[in-house]
């Protein structure tokens, strides 16, 4: 009995000392000190899946990344994100707001390196389409005045809450740096594999070659060959292979919760948009007469059906890559949000470090579910890479198909 009490006491002390300290430190170091610390699960999750202009490594340790910023009328500003001193310094009206570069809208603000007192968020009323709406906005504090901040331009045309603002961010962000890391890994792995084929010519595969070969052969035998067809598949194989391995490596790197992983690459619509756009371009520039005929004037059906079918087919040309883009993005982002939410249980149950028992309960529940989710995510990482490549291959296959099934129909 005395032992049991002793163990209870010990655990309480350890958890009581360690957990709140860690939990508050995590936020205390990253965010503003003068804000009241209340755990906001949604904001935390959104911040963690978002792109950033610096690479977070450890408590308070960030790798600065190069920033290439373009503002119409001002031109290019090229600097390291370390210059922003985590939101305490403005450079040419650019500031770092929670990891992301923003721009001070007002032209009254001085150019060059200027010390600012911090960044705050406030609810403001904005007029939009004649209606007054409440909106959260960020402000930079400088000499007792509040200067509103502009986010980087996005290409959603305002539909998703973004739009063109006063500047464009072409920086090597955390995501771009991670994509570069993926590219480097792919190059290292595949040059080694290709070298293996040269060195072990006529012999059994060895080392990394025998790790990649089954995956390569699986994609060849289950994706490119059956989907594109015996005649054309070799022409498109490098494209499908690049897609598959690029997505796979990005997904897997995104699953690693610490540096150099942790970037939500394929859970970012910009990246999946590029991949889907590539699939769209490759499909449609290789579309033959037969493919276009089936889209614009489907043979073998009555004319009034054609009137309905043609718009549907034309829409399909765009919906196919659009679905590719959304599917990959949604799957990866959803997985990340679930994991981050489960981890967030620790802070929610623990009331941000004030309730140790709650935090411990959250750690147990959240930890177990996170372990389970991570396994599912691992499956999803492979599955989504496979689905993206097999669907792209099937679209390409439809575009280069010579319509032998048509002759078959006529034979009946």
């Amino acid at each position: 009995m005395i032992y049991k009490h002793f163990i209870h006491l010990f655990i309480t002390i350890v958890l009581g000392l360690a957990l709140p300290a860690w939990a508050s430190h995590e936020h205390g170091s990253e965010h503003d000190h003068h804000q009241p610390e209340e755990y906001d699960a949604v904001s935390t999750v959104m911040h963690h899946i978002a792109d950033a202009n610096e690479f977070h490594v450890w408590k308070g340790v960030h790798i600065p990344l190069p920033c290439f910023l373009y503002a119409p009328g001002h031109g290019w500003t090229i600097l390291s994100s370390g210059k922003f001193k985590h939101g305490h310094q403005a450079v040419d009206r650019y500031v770092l707001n929670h990891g992301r570069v923003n721009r001070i809208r007002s032209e009254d603000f001085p150019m060059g390196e200027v010390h600012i007192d911090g960044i705050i968020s406030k609810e403001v009323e904005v007029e939009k389409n004649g209606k007054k709406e409440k909106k959260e906005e960020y402000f930079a504090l400088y000499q007792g005045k509040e200067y509103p901040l502009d986010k980087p331009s996005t290409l959603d045309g305002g539909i998703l809450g973004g739009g063109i603002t006063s500047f464009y961010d072409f920086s090597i962000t955390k995501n771009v740096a991670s994509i570069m890391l993926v590219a480097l890994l792919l190059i290292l792995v595949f040059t080694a594999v290709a070298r293996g084929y040269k060195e072990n010519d006529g012999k059994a595969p060895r080392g990394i070659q025998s790790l990649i070969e089954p995956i390569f052969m699986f994609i060849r035998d289950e994706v490119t060959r059956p989907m594109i067809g015996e005649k054309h598949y070799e022409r498109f194989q490098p494209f499908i292979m690049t897609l598959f391995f690029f997505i796979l490596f990005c997904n897997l790197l995104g699953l690693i919760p610490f540096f150099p992983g942790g970037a939500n690459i394929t859970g970012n619509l910009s990246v999946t948009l590029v991949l889907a756009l590539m699939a769209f371009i490759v499909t449609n520039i290789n579309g033959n007469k037969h493919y276009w005929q089936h889209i614009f004037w489907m043979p073998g059906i009555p004319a009034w059906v054609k009137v309905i079918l043609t718009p549907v087919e034309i829409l399909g040309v765009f919906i196919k890559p659009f679905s590719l883009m959304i599917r990959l993005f949604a799957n990866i982002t959803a997985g990340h949000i679930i994991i981050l939410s489960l981890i967030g249980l620790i802070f929610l149950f623990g009331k941000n470090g004030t309730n140790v028992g709650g935090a411990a309960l959250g750690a147990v529940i959240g930890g177990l579910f996170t372990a389970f989710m991570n396994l599912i995510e691992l499956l999803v990482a492979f599955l989504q890479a496979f689905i993206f490549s097999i669907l792209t291959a099937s679209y390409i296959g439809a575009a280069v198909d010579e319509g032998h099934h048509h002759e078959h129909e006529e034979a009946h």
Partner: protein
Amino acid sequence: MFSPLFLAEFSVIKPDPGSIFWSALIFIFLYFFLGRVAFRPIQQALRKREEDIQSSLDEAKRTREEMAKLKADNEALLKLAQEERARILREAAETKEAIINEAKVKAKAEARKIVEEAKELIENQKMAAIVDVKNQVGNMAIDLTERLLRTQLKGNVEQEQLVARLMDEMKLN
């Protein structure tokens, strides 16, 4: 209650021109680089290996078939050779028999000839001996006659008897 540290902004859904530019650039570079350096050579190496394996299997099958054919040929040849041997042996046996028979016939004929020659020789010798005997008898007769004639003067009857007896004696010979 809602006092966020920062705004809950779902930023990942907004297509960012910078991210689009960099990911497109890196992806296109990867496609050309990996396609040239890795994917095409790997595919070629794999196809070459598959063709090698297939041709080796085909060749093994062909060789096996050839071996079987060769074996069948050998067996046929062996059978033929055995038949040939049997035939030769049979023929040899027949030939031997024929030779022996012929030899026997020849030997018999020779023997008969020899016997006949011997008989003839004997006859000839006998005849010669008879002739000789006759000649001697003649001589003896002449001699006897000569002697008789010398003794004729002594008596007739006794002489005639003597001559007759002598004549009989000669005939006996």
